[in-house]
């Protein structure tokens, strides 16, 4: 597991949005985002980042405390120690008060053309 310097999340909300602050879980610790732009309301785009500076074991986006949050697309930009920054995209998912979604993915394995 690499040490995460910082990460930035962009969430495109679908038809059903939410007005609560967006939280993430890093190694099972629930935290709010910094540098928040936009919102998680219907059809809107939410952007937030966090300077972690710690080793990642798990990273999830937390569902709302009430109601449902229909997500169309999640884009996460990860900057990890000794790795090139990389971007991962996830598709549609609906979150509620009982769910969170994994947004962690290990850095890609080096591949080259031969």
């Amino acid at each position, binding site marked *: 597991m690499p040490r995460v310097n910082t990460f930035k999340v962009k969430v495109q909300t679908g038809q059903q949005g939410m007005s609560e602050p967006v939280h993430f879980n*890093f*190694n099972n*610790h*629930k*935290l*709010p985002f*910094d540098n928040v732009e936009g919102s998680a309301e219907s059809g809107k785009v939410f952007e937030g980042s*966090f*300077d*972690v*500076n*710690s*080793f990642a*074991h*798990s990273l*999830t986006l*937390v*569902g709302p405390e009430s109601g449902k949050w229909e997500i169309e697309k999640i884009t996460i930009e990860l900057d990890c120690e000794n790795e090139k920054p990389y971007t*991962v*995209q*996830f*598709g*549609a*998912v609906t*979150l509620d*008060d*009982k*769910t*969170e*979604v*994994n947004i962690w*993915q290990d850095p890609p*394995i*080096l*591949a*080259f*053309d*031969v």
Partner: protein
Amino acid sequence: MNFIKRFFTGMKQEAEPVTSVIAEEVEKSTVVSQPEPQPQPETEAPSNFPLERSVLQIPAISEGVFPKDSDEVLIKAQPSPTGDQCLFTVNRPLMTGNSWFFSGFESAMESSLAEALFCLDDVETALVCESTVTVTRKDKTLVDWLPLAKEVGTAIRDALGVGKGLIAEKIISNLPSEEEIREGIQKVIDTEVNPGVAGHGGNISLLAVKGNSVTIQMGGGCQGCSAADLTLKQGIHTSFRKAVPMVGAIFDETDHTAGLNPYFS
């Protein structure tokens, strides 16, 4: 606690610890509602206690490895993190529906792809599956795959250029049914593999058979064990291939990060 502190030494400190939020919520509800003390069943959690959430796993959207509609043969090499093997992905099918493990030069007869690969001095084994070839090398001390990978790329292109059967016709016509593979593999798991790993509290289960490829899962003491890769490659693979020589790819779908009781923890 030291473990938690260690994780958070580099993190921002503005965020409140989760425990204090819970305590505050409990306090607030007591003040507002002023409930009469009523006996609660001991096993029931307080109604305002945060529920444990389930973590949803959704696949990452992968952008195609190769540009679409390319007439050129494109090959991408991806060495494994341990450096013992390299996966070559080609932008066209090499063997559809099944897979084949070539254990050495003798097994390559009449398979133009394998013949081309085993002409390279350092190639030890080759596994062909769909549009991929996984190669292991003889010299385990070398970690830089670039020189050999380039030779393998040329060999794959040469074989594709020949046009005749990449995999020998006798191999394809003699492939066993999925049922035969399932029975054979399950027997090895029950009689040989599981009794062996049981000493470490581990177990292996057969998840799926597709064509002659099998998918297994490691559980118990094997899940998350630091020696799982060694057990898989030197123990399980060897046992499977010895007992069921026609088995092709052996996929491991174990989530080793979720292991709770690994033997070598």
